[in-house]
């Protein structure tokens, strides 16, 4: 068979169209963002060289550190909330009971709406004159922050529940049977079998959560506009305001460059930690 081994090898140039397309619409803009961060440009006419002015402003005016703090806090609290809920719901939904299947189908409904639609729904529900939550929730710092965490969770917990449900179904039943024979209680089985067996699932879900939390942009725009003050102005929103509200595209590009570097570092770290990029079949190690 060795004659046929190595058959079906396409020419590497088949990958070229994808690389060129991705390069043009994703990589060139990243480089361009970096270039624009050294210019002054108001969106009209041509960008003018501005040296390090934007970077100097970004690193000294305090907006970046504040916004970074909000972004990290929102990501961490969101991940904690979503992981807890999705883990419990996913393991619960993995059971074979009929009523669990029916309820799981209902639990999935929020994910069918777009983030924009979900944000508008809670914009109405949290309206002080109209909504079902008394008081001006979005007017206070903690209220606005918790609202963003809750709204993000409301939409995305169904998706992560699905991932945990899939993971929990892969756990061999025989492990539970052995534990039951040894007299392990329900809590003990959950702690000693379910949790360790879901390690890889949790890693996958967490990667998607962290990446996804950077897309809270429209929720912030619709619900809080970064407010009160700048207390919920996450990095993408700060950039949007600087660019498309204040027409300071140089400063916005400096924020964008920072985002690109931070996100690339994050993705390298995640790839390393989870073995996402390992060239191996998903069947291996199961």
């Amino acid at each position: 068979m060795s004659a046929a081994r190595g058959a079906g090898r396409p020419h590497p140039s088949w990958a070229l169209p994808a690389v060129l397309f991705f390069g043009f619409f994703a990589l060139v803009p990243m480089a361009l963002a970096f270039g624009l961060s050294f210019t002054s440009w108001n969106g009209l006419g041509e960008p003018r060289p501005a040296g390090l002015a934007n970077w100097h402003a970004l690193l000294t005016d305090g907006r970046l550190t504040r916004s970074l703090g909000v972004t990290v806090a929102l990501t961490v609290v969101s991940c904690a909330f979503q992981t807890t809920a999705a883990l419990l719901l996913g393991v619960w939904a993995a059971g074979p009971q009929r009523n669990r299947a029916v309820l799981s189908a209902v639990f999935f409904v929020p994910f069918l709406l777009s983030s924009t639609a979900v944000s508008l729904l809670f914009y109405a529900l949290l309206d002080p004159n109209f909504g079902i939550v008394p008081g001006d929730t979005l007017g206070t710092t903690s209220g606005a922050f918790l609202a963003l965490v809750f709204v993000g969770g409301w939409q995305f917990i169904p998706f992560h529940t699905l991932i945990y449900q899939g993971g929990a179904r892969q756990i061999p039943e025989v492990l539970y049977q052995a534990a039951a024979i040894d007299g392990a209680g329900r809590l003990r089985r959950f702690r000693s079998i379910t949790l360790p067996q879901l390690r890889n699932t949790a890693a996958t879900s967490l990667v998607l959560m962290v990446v996804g939390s950077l897309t809270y942009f429209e929720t912030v725009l619709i619900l809080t506009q970064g407010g009160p003050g700048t207390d919920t102005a996450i990095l993408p929103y700060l950039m949007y305001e600087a660019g498309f509200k204040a027409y300071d595209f140089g400063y916005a590009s400096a924020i964008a460059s920072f985002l690109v570097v931070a996100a690339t570092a994050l993705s390298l770290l995640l790839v390393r930690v989870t073995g996402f990029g390992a060239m191996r079949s998903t069947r291996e190690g199961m």
Partner: protein
Amino acid sequence: MSRPANPLAGLGAVIWLAVVLVPVYVMVSVSLTRQDEALGGNALRPPHHPTLANYGTVLDNGFGHFLANTVLVAAVVVGIVLVLCVPLAYVAVRTRGVWSGGAFRLFLLGVAVPAQAVVVPLYLMITKLNLYDSLLAVALPTAAFAMPVSVLVLTGTLRDIPEELYEAMALDGASPARMLFRLVVPLARGGIGTVVVYASLQAWNGFLFPLIFTQSEDSRMLTLGLFTYVSQFGVNIPALLASVVLSGVPVFAVYLVARRTLVGGLMGAGGK
């Protein structure tokens, strides 16, 4: 193995059911309420005189057109992603070279880079390309940013195709192109399904690109349409919620008809 009832889990499930259903209930109920009735009343109370007038208001304000734009963009995005990523994944899995490995790592790097980060330079490029305020201006970058995850999913699926099948086809004298269409594509159906679901959701959920790259009502997509209703409808919250309900109907219909495919596709996106 017998499964004794778990009252604590049952309680948790009921609580979560309320968390999911109360907002959904208010959304539907208020969307059926007359505007004058909604303002004074309690949002939790069912409407006294149910009306479909709010849905009429939404449909009269371009909803169908916005929806058609979104569907068109989703179709273009899915098309671009499949045509470009399937051959790339084929190369990444079937060849061992500096170039194919490099190409794969390039996409891997892009997984966590948010599209938001490049919206300013893209805006400059889109204007220079004379694409501003067109659906293509939204579709092209959306497709580009859907590619990293799609490549990951597809290479994962393609790796599961056994070597023996390629060898058997090679003995029959099949070219790599023939293998792609006769072997790889049919056996990668699961992964391709996942990519279709994922890429169309990217287009469906996309908000920032339509916000920045389009302006006129002609090229307005659904998410942006909903956003403009906020200022357009003002205090007419029932009409706003009617537009939210309507925006969910197409995906809900897909969910009812093809729940297995949709959920399977999403599990695929998360399960890699």
